[in-house]
């Protein structure tokens, strides 16, 4: 029989998904070519949230870049702080001299940020699949984690917590008890969320075998983080290239099989448990002592010293006005952000300002694969795929 479809004159539907569309949070635009519900071609346009982060950093001192790093991946701001501080400390050559407590607290805060990020991401994914109640259970869990972060650094989102050569503040009194209380509640919420979704057939059908990407393609695109591990690649910066205290910690890294959305979902669910495990380990053996390096040229001296010692006063003024003097050179420290590898490539010419501050955002590499991942899929498949990629506009567009 002759195929009559060839006689019909049809043309694909061009659909602009975004930049202001409920699902394209973080302002991204998909230019879709549709055949009915099928996607023939998907072109991703980013850049709607570009605000010149790298130029901002070059115009301020090394310390003044910290508030801006908060605004990259605002779900896990502290991880950006830490990544930036680690790169700067590598340039300074004081990586080995960091106090034990500082490193331990940084690790705890990184994992808390990872918790907050995964809660938000998984919650938002279910929200967009229509399960608003599950979303709000994880938002509740995230709020509790944010309460913890707020009690440490004074803000929920824009933490501005880490400094080059130390931390802004020490952990508050009663932090252990607060963490225990929060984790008890969060475990309950995790179980409820898991029961609501993981074996729910509607959810499974939406997630399984959608947005899949092969191991080779994932590596070729430069995937990192949960999305790469979902494709079956055993790569986690915390294991492959340990920084902070991760080498001494006992934790597992979940790895998936096929690289579809369901694997990504499962990996994030498991990483929540592992992060809780890491934090609980660290809290049992949290070292006492200082949180800042004893080097007034790097870290502002204490206020008591500033008021009483002339040299400290001078260092304080010089550090603030001219910025910390970082020796000329360039450095990059990869860290495992909740969404993939986060790293800052810093170039210094010996002045008080970064000469170049380039950030490697994980979701930039993930977003470029969107077109391939939804090729030939349904319009509705964009939603879970885009959610599991976890594009953060602030980080991707910088």
């Amino acid at each position, binding site marked *: 029989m002759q195929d009559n479809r060839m006689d019909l004159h049809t043309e694909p539907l061009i*659909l602009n998904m975004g930049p202001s569309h409920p699902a394209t949070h973080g302002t991204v635009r998909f230019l879709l070519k549709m055949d009915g519900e099928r996607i023939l071609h998907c072109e991703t346009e980013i850049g709607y949230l570009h605000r010149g982060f790298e130029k901002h950093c070059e115009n301020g001192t090394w310390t003044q870049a910290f508030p801006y790093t908060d605004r990259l991946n605002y779900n896990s701001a502290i991880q950006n702080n830490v990544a930036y501080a680690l790169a700067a400390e590598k340039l300074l050559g004081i990586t080995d001299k960091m106090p034990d407590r500082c490193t331990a607290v940084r690790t705890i805060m990184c994992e808390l940020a990872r918790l907050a990020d995964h809660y938000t991401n998984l919650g938002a994914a279910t929200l967009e699949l*229509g399960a608003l109640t599950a979303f709000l259970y994880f938002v509740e869990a995230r709020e509790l984690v944010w309460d913890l972060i707020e009690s440490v650094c004074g803000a929920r989102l824009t933490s501005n917590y880490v400094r080059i050569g130390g931390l802004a503040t020490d952990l508050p009194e009663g932090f252990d008890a607060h963490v225990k209380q929060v984790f008890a509640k969060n475990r309950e919420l995790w179980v409820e969320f898991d029961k609501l979704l993981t074996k729910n057939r509607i959810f499974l059908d*939406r997630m399984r075998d959608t947005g899949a990407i092969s191991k080779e393609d994932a590596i070729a695109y430069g995937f990192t983080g949960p999305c790469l591990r979902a494709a079956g690649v055993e790569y986690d910066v915390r294991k492959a290239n340990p920084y902070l205290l991760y080498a001494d910690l006992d934790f597992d890294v979940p790895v998936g099989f096929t690289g579809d959305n369901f694997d990504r979902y499962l990996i994030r669910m498991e990483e929540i448990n592992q992060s809780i495990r890491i934090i609980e380990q660290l809290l049992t053996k949290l070292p006492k002592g200082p949180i800042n390096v004893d080097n007034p040229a790097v870290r502002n001296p204490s206020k008591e010293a500033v008021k009483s010692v002339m040299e400290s006063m001078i260092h304080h003024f010089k550090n603030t006005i001219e910025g910390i003097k970082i020796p000329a050179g360039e450095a990059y420290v990869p860290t495992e952000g909740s969404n993939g590898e986060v790293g800052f490539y810093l170039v210094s010419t010996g002045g008080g300002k970064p000469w170049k501050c380039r950030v490697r955002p994980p979701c930039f590499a993930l977003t470029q694969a969107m077109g391939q991942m939804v090729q030939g899929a349904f319009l509705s498949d964009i939603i879970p795929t885009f959610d599991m990629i976890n594009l953060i506009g602030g980080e991707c567009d910088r």
Partner: protein
Amino acid sequence: MFDYTYLPEMNLIPYLAEMMVKIVFIFSMNMGVFAPLLGWVERKQSALMQDRIGANRADIFGFTVFGLLHTLTDAIKLLTKEDFIPRGADRTLHYLAPFIAVVPALVAFAVIPFGGQYELWGHKANLVIADLDVGMLYIFAVASVGTYGAVIAGWASNNNWSLLGGIRVGAQMLSYEVAMGLTLVGIFMVYGTLRMTEIGAAQENFFHWGIFLQPVGFFLFIACALAENKRTPFDIPEAESELIAGYFTEYSGLKFAMFWMAEFLEMVTISAVLVALFFGGWQIPFVSHQMLADFFGFLGPNLAQVVTMLIHVGVFWAKVCLWIFILMLIRWTLPRFRYDQVMKLGWKIILPLALINIAVTGAVILLVR
């Protein structure tokens, strides 16, 4: 020619009076109580399910009345909002669509009995507006008209998202109407009638409730009914994260309110149909009409009937409210299907199961006889 024999031979005045009372009652229940209140119930119920408080900011002199005033502010907002018609839209159809959507939702209630038959002062009162012998078919027919409203809205808006929503709604509603009709065939076979009042009367015995006679049919019907209602998990025509708002993306003001109202009224209708067909209608388990009338016999025969009638009507609406609660629980618990999965569920699962159900029901009826 037209058959006039169905008209009552008795005098017309009490008949018309009874009719007016019933119409006003149903209309005020739907438009005055359920349409505005369900918005509030939905907000507050979802809030409590999600560990939130829910809308509570609208107040008059500091009295928020648990957020009930939000329904009032909603009404004021929707009435005073600009009625926006996008450029290039078909103005006539754009105006027409919300009416086509809301009217069927209202008139479908006409054949649903909200009480039994009572003899009051010599007048036989039948608590249903139109006691059609094709009762359930009438509901199917009217409900399928409602589909046009959504499809026309999607077409007339001159917006790609609306169009996609319109296509989805057309496909979904047509598929599920077929399945819905077949799921109920079992019920009609069991009770041997399409007349809703007779089905209701047949459920006087608790163990003759539809849920016990047709358990499979019940689950299939509830799935179809949810799909007809276009709420999560079947809200793909308006999936807010995919299609913004689907077929009513371009509607605002009172026309938007009409779609909104249609959705809530459909929910009431579905609950009422569920109650009438599967949950004994106005009947109370283990308490027959006669037992109630005898219990209140000390009031005299007429007053006893009045009290029985009021209890029955109350029971019916209580059951409807319970079902609305359950439907809302489902709506706020589940994620959404995908377009092809909805089609697959409708054509490949529900339809064959409904056919099997019919065959099994027929076999069992034959065996029992």
